[in-house]
């Protein structure tokens, strides 16, 4: 009986996700381009317009999730900051870390060691697979500076935000490619933009590497947020061109901690 069903399953499963003709030339062109530029091609693209999958709800959840997480992260961070300053005032008198020429971001904030290196690493490293639990350079420098849960709260909020932004931009680019824009994308961009600005104004955006990435991300999100459904394709392509020029997606992938 089981054998009969197995045969039936094999027979009927034959056209499960039946592959179309292989787009050899198109893929090879992009492989060559990516290899020449040394940048990774887009992976894990989630087409926003695939009819058989849900579209609206995840995008709405994305924004809500980001906002909630950010609020939680900042709340925890501030609470801990207050308690640390009350209990341990010596933190403020610790010697300032070495200043680096790249640490221009964060006016008034002391420059951090390794910030320049972390920024360069963020900008240049490929989106290689990072072992689970390994902290990316930008976040690692933050963790070194701030002990304990405070660092964790900010890093968590920043990591989650960058992860959500990466997923959103991947979706956005895919929808541009398929020529069908989802109006929800503009609202999501606005939500992400708000979160991005809050992070830029918080200690999460005090370090040069993070700040640079958040600023570039802000530009892209602002452009998307200003697009309307009536925007013509040239407007949309200006945004995607800006994304490509600034390597925003590869940099986000590099910065997002594994597991987020």
């Amino acid at each position, binding site marked *: 009986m089981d054998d009969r069903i*197995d045969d039936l*399953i094999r027979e009927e*499963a034959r056209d499960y996700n039946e592959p179309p003709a292989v787009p*050899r030339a*198109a893929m090879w062109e992009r*492989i060559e381009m990516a290899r020449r530029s040394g940048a990774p*091609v*887009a*992976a894990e693209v989630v*087409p926003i317009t695939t009819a058989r999958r849900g579209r609206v709800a995840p995008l709405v959840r994305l924004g809500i999730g980001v906002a909630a997480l950010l609020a939680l992260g900042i709340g925890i961070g501030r609470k801990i900051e207050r308690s640390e300053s009350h209990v341990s005032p010596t933190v403020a008198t610790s010697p300032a870390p070495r200043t680096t020429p790249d640490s221009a971001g964060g006016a008034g904030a002391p420059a951090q060691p390794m910030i320049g290196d972390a920024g360069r690493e963020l900008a240049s490293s490929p989106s290689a697979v990072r072992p689970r639990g390994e902290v990316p350079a930008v976040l690692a420098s933050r963790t070194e500076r701030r002990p304990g849960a405070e660092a964790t709260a900010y890093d968590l909020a920043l990591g989650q935000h960058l992860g959500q932004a990466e997923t959103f931009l991947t979706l956005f680019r895919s929808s541009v490619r398929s020529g069908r824009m989802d109006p929800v994308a503009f609202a999501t961009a606005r939500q992400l933009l708000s979160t991005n600005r809050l992070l830029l104004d918080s200690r999460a955006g005090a370090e040069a590497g993070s700040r640079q990435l958040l600023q570039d991300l802000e530009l892209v999100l602002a452009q998307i947020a200003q697009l309307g459904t009536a925007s013509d394709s040239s407007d949309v392509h200006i945004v995607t061109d800006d994304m490509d020029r600034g390597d925003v997606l590869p940099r986000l992938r590099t910065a997002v901690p594994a597991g987020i």
Partner: protein
Amino acid sequence: MDDRGLITRVLAGDVSAERELYDAHVDRVFRLVYRMAGDLDQAQDYVQETFIRAFGKLADFRGESALATWLGSIAISVTLNGLRKVKRFREREVALEDAAEIGRTTREAEPDLKTRLHGAIDALPPGYRAVFVMHDMEGYTHEEIATSLGVQPGTSKAQLFRARAKLREALADFVTD
């Protein structure tokens, strides 16, 4: 030319050899990736990522398995990682225990056996689905699957067994009718 010769030429910087290697293996890689992803955009991206990684790591390829198997392992890793990300975002996957339920609860809405089967395959956990697709649909051996997924051949067989059991369960009342 055999794979070994092709690899040597690629490592020596012969660009035409890269294209030859790609042409020789892209169909099989694409079929597998598309079967898993079920979406052309995603499939193309995963295939591209597979070959970029493969060219980048080719010097590390020691020939312990066939080049096709090695490429398959990269492809399946890239694809599963990508689909995991999609799953987290879309929450479209259902738990293993729900695979059979899909068949039962949607019977009236989806009277077509094929539709129900495809839904049940979609609902399999990614690892089970990978083994089922690779073995029953794309003709990979358990040894190749084991190498690709980094498991023992026995694990591959066990996962195929469980995947089929879940699919049988999903279709049971259909078949007995």
